[in-house]
């Protein structure tokens, strides 16, 4: 077990003017499950590979348990990795795959077998140990890859999108299993994903990356409730938050007929702000209510328990932004209907119109 500290770690790939990972500083506690999330190409996998020693750190440092890892070979870092493709050895059985690292480390055959059996029991792999990867299903391979990591009892687990090759149903169940396993083993884990649902459900904390720059590290709830900028607000949450340009008048942000009171001391002299309103922060009321946006419904998506209404504000015309409103199935409007939706003032996020930073 170990703590991990990224100290302004930077990675520049040859031929790119911008660094792939730009001065990331991140303190991961012993036993913590940290999720690195961001769109493709944001540098999250590179960050993970730097920790595993598969990519060099060009500037800054990475410390494991306070020790600088510069020049330490991957095999000497005591870091186990689960790859997106699983990267199992096709010529070895599941048991040999899991025991490979132990045997390389000089563990006796009997001890290695005992540890493999223990891991196989946790992962329900006992009956599959003699099979080769080619004879296993995707989910089983994924579990062997997990087993290969846990038998080593490493300081740190690195997981690079380990669920992305599974089908949707298996992904949900495996997600819960991995999170439970991590809590049981208590090994510091860094988990990379582009799926914000995985990020929100699995991690103790979530780090959001964009273009190699760390945007925000916080608990899933804090990320959702207090995003530091429009990027984090837009990335976390599904369906995405509504980001609306609003004009400031008399200390209120006004948009499409609705008005939100703003805190003057934070606002400064800004004339425009970006207002972020989550789909569930609206209420659909009757069309005569005050302080609401008249929304022309274009599409209604019913997921069973909840209903998402997509539409354009009447005041904005055809070119206006498309807004998403969540409602329950009792208040399901029809396509083409005009409904008045009212934002819950206390749940509205206000961002600087230029920089996108939270006000």
């Amino acid at each position, binding site marked *: 077990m170990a703590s991990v500290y990224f100290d302004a770690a930077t990675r520049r790939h040859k031929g790119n003017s911008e660094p792939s990972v730009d001065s990331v500083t991140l303190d991961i506690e012993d036993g913590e499950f940290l999720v690195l999330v961001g769109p493709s190409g944001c540098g999250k996998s590179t960050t993970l590979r730097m920790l*595993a020693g598969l990519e060099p750190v060009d500037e800054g440092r990475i410390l494991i348990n306070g020790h600088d890892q510069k020049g330490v070979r991957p095999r000497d870092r005591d870091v*186990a*990795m689960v790859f997106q*493709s699983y*990267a199992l050895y*096709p010529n070895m059985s599941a048991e040999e795959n899991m025991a*490979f690292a132990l045997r390389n480390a000089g563990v006796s055959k009997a001890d290695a077998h005992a540890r493999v059996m223990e891991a196989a029991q946790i992962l329900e792999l006992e009956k599959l140990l003699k099979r080769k990867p*080619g004879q*296993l299903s995707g989910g089983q391979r994924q579990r062997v890859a997990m087993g290969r990591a846990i038998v080593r009892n490493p300081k740190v687990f690195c997981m690079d999108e380990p669920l992305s090759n599974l089908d949707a149903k298996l992904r949900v169940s495996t997600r819960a299993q991995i999170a439970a396993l991590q809590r049981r083993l208590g090994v510091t884990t860094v988990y990379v994903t582009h799926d914000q649902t995985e990020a929100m459900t699995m991690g103790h904390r979530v780090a959001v990356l964009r273009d190699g720059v760390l945007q925000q590290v916080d608990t899933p709830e804090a990320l959702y409730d207090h995003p530091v900028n429009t990027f984090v607000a837009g990335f976390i949450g599904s369906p995405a938050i509504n980001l609306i340009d609003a004009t400031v008048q008399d200390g209120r942000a006004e948009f499409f007929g609705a008005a939100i009171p703003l805190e003057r001391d934070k606002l400064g002299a800004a004339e425009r702000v970006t207002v972020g309103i989550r789909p569930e922060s609206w209420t659909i009321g009757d069309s005569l209510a005050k302080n609401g946006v008249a929304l022309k419904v274009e599409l209604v998506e019913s997921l069973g328990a909840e209903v998402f209404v997509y539409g354009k504000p009447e005041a904005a015309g055809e070119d206006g932004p498309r807004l998403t409103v969540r409602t329950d199935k009792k208040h399901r409007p029809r396509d083409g209907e005009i409904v008045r939706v009212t934002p819950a003032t206390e749940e509205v996020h206000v961002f600087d119109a230029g920089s996108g930073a939270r006000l």
Partner: protein
Amino acid sequence: MTDTAAVTGFDSDEKPTGAHNAEAASFGGTGMKIAGYVGMVLVFLVVAGPLFWIVVTSVKERPDIYTQPAQWWPAHPTSDGYHSATTAIPFWDYFRNSVIITAILSIAKIVLGVMSAYALSLMRFPGRNLLFVVIIAALMVPNQITVISNYALVSQLGWRNTYQGIIIPLAGVAFGTFLMRNQFLSVPGEIIEAARLDGAGPLKLLWRVVLPMSWPTLIAFSIITVVNEWNEYLWPFLMSDDSRSGTLPIGLTHLQNNDGITNWGPVMAATVLAMLPVLIVFLALQRHMIKGLTAGAVKG
């Protein structure tokens, strides 16, 4: 029927049938099938004809070899050709030389090829690509150009009529390096990274992870090497005068020079005997040249 199967073949269970039918349809009907078989028979005749003639001639009596019209089946089969082939020249000495030289050369070439390919594909060092280009350039130089200077050097060393005189100049492996390097580069990078994280050193990485995934290519390379070395003619011919270090092809030449122009029976018999070992090696190894050894390594 074919069309409907191909159209409805989007369901995953139906796919193989659909694809198979579509393939069959694209090759047309009976006409194409017949043309295919005719092609196969032609190729078979071109390849098997001379072989058949060698075997038949080896068991003919001397007068039956030169007759008009040609005898397609020996009228009086005899093993005299085989007897005289193994007694007129020290056949088994040549055979022993061939086995020793082929074995040492093949092992040397395979080991050197695999090791150099490993270094050029999986290890990082400055000038790696330049070195690879130099090796490929060596592949482009025809054998005949280097043969004179090699001869001068080796005879100066006093290595004529010795095994090392034949083996060492032939042990260069540009082809094996090229072939195995490209094979190693096709091994998924994540597996190599996984092995490195699992604490595998360079030799273990090669032996336990990379080579087992490269068997088909390695077997193909081994077969090519064994056959080439067994049949190597020019250099052993220049290096050896007699059965002290001469290989079977040299023995065949001596046999032909003795009485070959008039008596082809023993020459053909010796040819059959010289072919058998490589044929056995080939048949034993070729079943290992199967694909799909990387199944299940990455993704599904």
